[in-house]
């Protein structure tokens, strides 16, 4: 199981901010998230940046036991 952190619009679409999901790579965790939260969430993931902890990563990145996948939609702060 891997931890996932959902920010801004991704949090809204998922109905939660944190979760634990199965997957050995970033892509597998995201696929599990879309299966759990639905297609609106999937649309946000497609335009989002994905971080592993505090680093931008691709979907093939393998996960360690303490890693957190972060879903960051386009930003609107400041």
């Amino acid at each position, binding site marked *: 199981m891997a931890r996932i952190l959902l920010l*801004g619009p991704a949090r809204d679409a998922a109905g939660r901010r944190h979760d634990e999901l199965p997957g050995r790579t970033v892509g597998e965790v995201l696929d599990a998230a879309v299966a759990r939260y639905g297609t609106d969430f999937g649309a946000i993931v497609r*335009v989002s940046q994905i971080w592993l902890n505090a680093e*931008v990563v691709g979907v093939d990145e393998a996960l360690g036991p303490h890693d957190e996948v972060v879903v960051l939609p386009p*930003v609107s*702060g*400041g």
Partner: protein
Amino acid sequence: MNPPDGDDWISVTEASLSAQRLTSWASRPDCGAVVTFCGTARNSSTNGRLIEALEYDTSVELAELRLGQVVAVARAKWPELVAVAIHHRVGLVNLGEPAVVIVVSSPHRQAAYDASRFCIDTVKSFVPMWKREVWEGGSAWSEEAQDLLRLEDL
């Protein structure tokens, strides 16, 4: 919240921001210029509704990490900068209140102005932060969203 030991002051907080406190902190005898930017909650929106407040969402840890990177890049671009502070609120911000305050001091004003603009432009495109517009009976995420830049894009 106490000032840091060094010349960078980063904070992401639910508390009200004090531009005055940051401006005083950044005013040094070797600085001829202190530029203070307040990004304040504004009563117009991207969808035409009458906004009553703004609400900001982030991960405080990740946002502070990236604000620190913004300051580091600004110092590399403008080595004469003396003090640099970026404070950003999370949670509800009432109209007219600052959601972000950026203070930059330097011996001469050109670097302070240029770095101040760089910091706010970069906060808006590089720091994980989402703005929700709140009106009577509803709310929605701002439609002004930009793709999140990478460190190597700055």
